[in-house]
């Protein structure tokens, strides 16, 4: 009995320390340098191949049911001939104050110890609430069992990733930051009794980006590439609070977070594109 109590107390010790909720084992984050992004879409294709995302076909795409976990948004500004085309890759921001996590009645989506917003396919009952609550529209729903509809017809099934589930109808899915690669790296690190090194985890989109616009890493580590690119100080826990402003602590004048005023505390940090003729560089 005493042993059991001790074990229990040991387990909950972390929760008695002030500010425990501000710490993750890792704090996976992405930096997207829009100055480097060419909008080629290699990341979208790589993501689709890595994560067994079905191709839904022309008709379903037309209905707005594309299952790509990430997309490159294009915006055209101005009238011809004075036209500017802007584009931005958008994918799950793994918000630290994620609106979707509050919404799910069955905990199919929750925040894990690595700062990831994870989706448990098996647990999902398909209320759609997470997707409606998501301000970035990055959640995707399995409207059908696509593998029965021929999305992975032979020989396409040969290239399915064995580390990733092929989803069936009625469940929500979204960008996982390639959690299968994170898990593999953590396993390796655990065997060697160390922490995961910076640059050891490379999600498919980052791996495929020809212009190295995407960088993935751990914000807990002040020397990681992401921390440096985003210009963050050590322990930037402030970013996890709702109402936080990246501009307050970031040293990089180009850094911003998409729709920051919604207070979802997204962990994807964009670096603004400096365009010819743009008068303002820095925070809006």
């Amino acid at each position, binding site marked *: 009995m005493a042993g059991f109590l001790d074990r229990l107390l040991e387990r909950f010790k972390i929760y008695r320390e002030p500010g425990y909720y501000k710490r993750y084992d890792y704090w996976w984050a992405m930096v997207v340098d829009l100055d480097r992004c060419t909008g080629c879409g290699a990341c979208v294709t790589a993501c689709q191949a890595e994560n067994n995302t079905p191709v839904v076909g022309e008709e379903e795409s037309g209905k707005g049911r594309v299952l790509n976990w990430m997309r490159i948004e294009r915006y055209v500004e101005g009238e011809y001939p004075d036209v500017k085309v802007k584009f931005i890759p958008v994918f799950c921001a793994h918000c630290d104050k994620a609106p979707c996590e509050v919404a799910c009645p069955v905990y199919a989506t929750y925040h894990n110890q690595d700062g990831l917003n994870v989706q448990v396919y098996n647990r999902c009952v398909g209320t759609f609430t997470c997707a409606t609550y998501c301000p970035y529209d990055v959640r995707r729903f399995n409207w059908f069992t696509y593998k029965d509809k021929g999305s992975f017809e032979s020989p396409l099934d040969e290239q399915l990733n064995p580390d990733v589930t092929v989803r069936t109808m009625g469940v929500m899915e979204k960008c996982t930051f390639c959690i299968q690669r994170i898990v593999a790296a953590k396993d390796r690190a655990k065997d060697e009794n160390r922490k995961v090194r910076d640059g050891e985890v490379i999600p498919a989109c980052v791996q495929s980006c020809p212009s190295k616009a995407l960088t993935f890493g751990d914000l807990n580590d002040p020397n990681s590439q992401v921390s440096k690119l985003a210009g963050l100080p050590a322990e930037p826990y402030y970013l996890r609070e709702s109402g936080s402003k990246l501009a307050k602590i970031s040293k990089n004048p180009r850094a911003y977070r998409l*729709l920051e005023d919604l207070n979802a505390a997204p962990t994807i940090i964009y670096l603004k594109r400096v365009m010819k003729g743009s008068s303002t560089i820095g925070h809006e």
Partner: protein
Amino acid sequence: MSNISYREVNDDVVRTMTETGRSYYIALSLCLVGIVITFGLPWVYQIYTGQGVTGLHSPAYWGVYLTNFVFWIGISHSGTLLSAILFITQTPWRRSIYRSAEAMTFFSVVTAATMVFVHMGRPWNWYWTFPYPNQRELWTNFKSPLMFDVFAIGTYATASFIFLYFGSIPDLAAVRDRVAGWRKSLYGALALGWRGTDREWDLLQKAYTFFAVFIIPLAVSVHSIVSWDFASSKIPGLNKTIFAPYFVIGAIYSGSAGIVTLMILLRKAIKFEKYITHVHFDKLGILLVVMSLLWTYVNITEVFTGWYTGTSYELESLSYRMFTTPFAYLFWLMIACNTFFPLLFVFRKVRVSIVAALLISIGINIGMWIERYLIISTSLPRKFLPNMWRDYFPSWVEISLTVGTFLFFTLLFLLFVKLWPSFSIYEIKEDIGIPMEKKGH
């Protein structure tokens, strides 16, 4: 009503339950066939194929199913609530309408609940939304407004059924004493051995008062919680603190209009014109005018707060709803149905006119359905990132299931009229007064 004898009341109510005409069976079978065709088969098709058969897409993940859900929960809001409020305030005109109104509450909650299952992507896992110990060691998320819904609607359905049942016990006993055969044993069991002693009446009165008091805050909380499903999101057009009162007022409004429609149809169908008179429609008309003014006020506030935020998202959502075709037509039709036509009830002539009351009350419910449809289908397709904007229109499966819900409700009500004393025998008698006194003995 004072010239009706007690015997006549008993006869009339028992007649509705024992004498069944051919038209009743025709209506019943039409309903059953209709439900299979419009609800059963399309739903099976949807479960088998997937939610892809609907018109839903990203980002409009919510559509007509939730519109129906909110609509039917709204309809349920007046029966029991009105009955409870009028009971506590001892309003005499309550007595001949309250039984059917309470039944309406219970049946529309049941109808709304079916929509939850229809809406789910994997309805066969519905029980996962209940907190029960399981070997997967998983628990439900009590922070989710949907979780509140499970409890709120469960409680409301239970409480309104108990309220309906308690109020019916003396009548079930009265029916038990008048019928034979299988009905005798059915109502004998349902009447719980009621004999009509003083003590029984006293206990019934206490229990009934308790539930009346209990149900008023419950009804208000249920629709507030339904509104939080929407209001606790960040979506422009939904993220507003006014939503809870907005939904509650809308619910009572549509529920009251539902009562008017239903009472007009019911008194005609079972020839109860002498019990539901123009007095009732006069009072209900006044209630509808008040609710209409309140609804208009809250609606103006809702639009105002949206405009006052000054953010481009909210302004886009408002202009999409109010000034962009095709939704603008629906919006202004809703305003006409819910704000302007009910104002005619200011005139007593309109209030006591059955045809006018029927038309306006149906108009109100059309308007209220549109309101819920607009709330959902003009907010979600205009979220934050314009790249994802995409209009939502329902598919044939969704429209068919919507028709099915109305048939389902009608079926439940048809069964109710035949199997349950749909008018309160003992309270109508209270309304008539003591016959001895009247005759001057």
